[in-house]
């Protein structure tokens, strides 16, 4: 199947050997979207890579921005103002809502629901994108974070709009769950399909909701406590079965937690600058050294590994994409299931090819 296939979420190819309808062998083939991100990153300045990170995982530009900004800030030892950290948390959680909502839509689309869940998901996505657009100027490619803060400050009107969205989001989730979560067909399609054992999940480096659906409690927001996450109260939902339904449900529950974080953050956001006054936009040259900085992206651990040789360009610029590594176990999950299951298992892994291939 693929690379042109309606449900491979982009240009992904699975070499599938079938026995009847049962998958006996499955080899993913990718690279169809290999855009040489890392090579370009090594040939440009630190700042110039920021807009490219938007295009890694094009659902989650804000968290990609943050991961990259965080890695560079840690590499160069830059402080970040408090308001900027709050804004980052707000934007990251909005991104998480965005990503999980879209994932739920796409997953349902893969199971064959004629677009309705996807449409509802995108209806809400547009609301979040409106927020992103009015803040950063672009719907998808925000290019918003800077080393040492954020590019533009959020106006009170923006915060009010965000608050309004957050307050209305639970209603959307309720509607969505009513539409589909209790649906017997969905349960029949997803439960006990593509079971991922915790041991394999850890060994294969699976991260994000997929790992937590297998019951492993590992969330960088708690473990690393980066940003201001330790200041917020939230819970980590865990699945017990590790199947496709759990992966879907864990994301639905995570969204509710994200709403909680957003409420707290929007209530407590302090006044102040959003950029470290000493941060430079032009001529940024960190001292030699290397650093691996990571955050909990909506899809899993997204990290940037940077080696600086003291020049304006990074010597080595590496992205640790969660999607790529989450794909490792695709074959293990699909063996013994049917072709139709393979499609929704792939959907529940939640890959974005821009990030897999880079």
């Amino acid at each position, binding site marked *: 199947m693929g690379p042109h296939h309606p449900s491979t979420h982009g240009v992904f190819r699975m070499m599938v050997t079938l026995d009847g309808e049962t998958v006996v062998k499955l080899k993913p083939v990718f690279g169809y979207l290999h855009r040489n991100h890392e090579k370009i990153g090594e040939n*440009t*300045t630190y*700042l*110039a*890579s*920021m*807009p*490219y990170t938007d*295009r890694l995982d094009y659902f989650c530009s804000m968290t990609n921005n943050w991961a990259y900004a965080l890695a560079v800030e840690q590499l160069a030892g830059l402080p970040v103002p408090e308001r900027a950290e709050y804004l980052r948390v707000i934007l990251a959680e909005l991104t998480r809502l965005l990503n999980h909502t879209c994932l739920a839509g796409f997953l349902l689309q893969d199971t064959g629901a004629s677009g*309705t869940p996807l449409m509802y998901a995108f*209806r809400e996505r*547009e609301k979040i994108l*409106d927020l992103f*657009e*009015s*803040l*950063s*100027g*672009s719907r998808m*490619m925000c*290019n918003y974070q800077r080393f040492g803060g954020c*590019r*533009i400050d959020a106006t009170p009107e923006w915060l009010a709009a965000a608050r309004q969205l957050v307050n209305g989001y639970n209603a959307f989730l309720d*509607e969505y769950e*009513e*539409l*589909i*979560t*209790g*649906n*017997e*067909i*969905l*349960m029949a399609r997803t439960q006990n399909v593509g079971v991922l054992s915790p041991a394999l999940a850890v060994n294969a480096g699976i991260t994000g909701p997929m790992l937590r659906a297998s019951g492993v409690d590992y969330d960088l927001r708690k473990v690393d406590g980066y940003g201001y996450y330790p200041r917020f109260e939230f819970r980590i939902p865990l699945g017990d079965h590790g199947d496709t339904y759990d992966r879907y449900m864990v994301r639905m529950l995570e969204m509710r937690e994200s709403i909680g974080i957003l409420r707290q953050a929007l209530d407590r956001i302090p006044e102040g600058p959003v950029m470290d006054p000493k941060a430079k*936009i*032009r001529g940024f040259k960190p001292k030699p050294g290397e650093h691996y900085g990571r955050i909990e992206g909506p899809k899993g651990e997204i990290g940037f590994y940077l080696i600086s040789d003291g020049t304006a360009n990074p010597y080595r610029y590496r992205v640790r994409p969660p999607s790529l590594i989450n794909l490792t176990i695709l074959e293990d999950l699909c063996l013994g299931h049917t072709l139709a299951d393979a499609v929704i298992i792939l959907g529940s892994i939640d890959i974005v090819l821009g990030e897999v291939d880079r």
Partner: protein
Amino acid sequence: MLGSGLIQGLAVTAKNFVKSFHDPARLVTVEYPEQKTKLPENYRNFPFLVYDGDQAIDGLRCVACKICEAECPPQCIYIIPDRDEKGRPTKKPKVFDLDISVCMSCQICVEVCPFDAIKMDQHFEIATAERFNALLLHREDLAKSDAYFHTLHPTEAAQVDAVLAEAKRRTEAKARPAAPAAVPATPTAPAAPAAKPPEPPPPAV
């Protein structure tokens, strides 16, 4: 019970169907060519060059310093500084080309420009059947008036005006310390009322 989930789902879709006839939140479509969403002030699409006054080319704020060309991540800007007859730089671009078939609308050129000469346009309806020339914008295509900038980004424009006026005041104050301080023609407060009709500022001298 078996089927209750199915029936719930049917109820949701039926509700949406009925509500789509009277509830605007359930019929979210913006019928594009006739209706348009109001673009937020921060929206950016492609860069343009700001000129003051009414001379599109002569009034360009751009001094051809080539900073944006160097900083542009996809390197879609191409500048040749103009020179007068004697070969001295005139601080104007002779060629300012921008390949919008490459531009990624990242706004870094705007951020790095020390002269507030390049800003982001909001015009996005530029689908074309022509490959080469239509997508390579020249100085003439890029030059837009300051008033236009004011209509697009009123807040930012007001800030820019304040900064420029301040700079002008300083230089004037330095040059003629005895002269009375020039009254800034535009509001100095950063949060200028957005509703204020944009007026072209006095041509930069």
